[in-house]
């Protein structure tokens, strides 16, 4: 199948070199959603590509040590949980579900709170998309643990 060391050295080296940069770019996109195109979904997609590339090009033992198989569902769950908690916290301050503006922390305006809430949500979405896409890939490649 496709996983495992790719026969060409050039591909292996380029894949190994490219992956961290894609990762960085993905993180940038996740964080940059407030000011330009991007956000959790596109960023999470790039993160997933950064994890899938080594799986396709590098030797299996190495690739699956970098991002283990159980990482996928774990990150999916953690990201989703982060999102849900972000929605739950305002309810303790008397707000509605996902109403970040209702959280009262001294010295932070409601609009700033919403800004931060959006950031947390984007990170949660990014993690969840990353986890989900890696999981689907692993499952299709018959590498999942189930």
């Amino acid at each position, binding site marked *: 199948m496709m996983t495992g060391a790719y026969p060409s050295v050039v591909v292996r080296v380029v894949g190994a070199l490219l992956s961290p940069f894609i990762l960085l770019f993905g993180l940038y996109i996740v964080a940059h959603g407030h000011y330009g195109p991007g956000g959790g979904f596109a960023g999470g997609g790039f993160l997933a590509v950064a994890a899938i590339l080594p799986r396709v090009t590098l030797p299996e033992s190495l690739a699956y040590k970098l991002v283990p198989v*159980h990482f996928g*569902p*774990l990150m*999916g*769950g*953690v990201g*989703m*949980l982060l999102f*849900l908690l972000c929605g*739950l916290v*305002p*309810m303790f301050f008397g*707000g*509605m*579900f*996902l*109403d*970040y*503006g*209702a959280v009262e922390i001294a010295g932070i305006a409601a609009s700033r709170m919403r800004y931060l809430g959006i950031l947390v949500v984007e990170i949660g979405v990014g993690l969840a998309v990353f986890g989900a896409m890696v999981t689907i890939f692993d499952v299709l490649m018959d590498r999942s*643990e*189930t």
Partner: protein
Amino acid sequence: MSQLPILPLLPMLFGSIIAVLAGMWRAKAAQVIAVIATGSALLFALTGLVIVTRDGPISYDLGGWPPPIGIEYVLDPLSAFMTSIVALIGLLVMIYPVDAAFDLRPRKGVPLYPLALLMLTGLMGVMLSGDLFHLFVFLEIYAIATYGLVSLGGDRATFAALRYLLLGTIGSGLYLLGVGFLYFSTGTLNMADMAQQLGGMSGSPTVLGAMALMVIGLALKMALFPLHVWLPDAHSYSTPGVAALLAAVQVKAGAYALVRILFDVFGPAYTGFDGVPVSAALVWFGLAGIVVGSVMAIRQTDIKRLLAYSTVAQLGYIGLGIGLATPLALVGALLHVLNHAVMKSGLFLVAGGIIQRTGLKAIPRFSGLGKRMPLTMTGFAIAALSMVGIPPLAGFWSKFYLVWATIDLGNWVAAVVVVGSSILTMVYFLKLFEQIFVREPQEEVVATAVEPSGRVVGTVGVLATAIVLIGLFNAAIVSQVLGPLAERMLG
């Protein structure tokens, strides 16, 4: 209680995600979490039902943004009623033993219960949403979870799941296109807001086209004849627990969305009849579905396949009720949603019990089961008699309201079909009764069979009791919940 509308959904959301994480740690943990989550959702949904029938609908602004800007959840009698049904059936299936329900021993990291929970979450989201696009998102959540769960049934089920996926995705695509047409002609997505905007443009081709697209899309999801082609395979090949969930609540989400959108969003444009063939089409396709489903059910020898075709027929009743669009008919349709949920899940869970103990699916080999499993088979008899429509069991009353509605409208063809289909239903259940209760045990597996495990008997018992109770207290349900609801939706 301003938080009430979101409360049934929250335990489901958290439960499904925590079950994913817990399931990676301990295989057993997921089922416990699933029971707790659906149980608390049921509690909240029932509380909600009591409160909103007394005090009127509660609207919930997610994120603190008032409706046209943000997404709104609406807990009104209809959504509380449907949410309670989903949570009740969900809870019983979660309690049902895992090997009989899903035919898979739970193992670390196998997302069985998380997926079942996600399906129920999606169904509840559909029922609570007051926003057209948000409804689409939850429509897809439950659909995707369903594709995964159906494939548990093995090879044929996988193929059925793939066919269902292709048709279901086209269905939601058509629904999405309909939403697009509506958005571009009104500039809003909120249901209440849109109903107001649509009031002045009922003749517009865009609105009519959107209505047609959404009805076709949702009818595909609901498996209304002739768009039911995916249903018999998907329902009969999936494992008993999944089949119970599918038949009892999953197809009803499509029916609910249809009711909600036709009556609450399109409102007069739909019920006004002028030049709109949608409701007439629903009536005729509903009737055709009743006849075809019943006739096909008679010809089946596999119990799960028989039940699947019977679902096609029962969905025909619901489609008929929506199409007739009178308060009485709507009461009949909604009561039938409840009745069918309880009856059909009961029957599938009985089938699961039979398979658990004997491995039999073919009806001709059921001879004498009644003597070996008296408790389970009593539950089966109650559910089946209710399906036929024997008073005072639950199933009688929904047909009664539907027949009354057709006579009221002078639609004699419909009345004859509804009454006649009861006879057809009787035919296919009599066949089963003869095998189970009259004949002596012939097969080795039957002769040595014992009553299924306690949890099977328990869940079937709860459902059988529910059938009797709904039948006895149907007047209360209709006068307290469904009657006022239907009057309001059509008034």
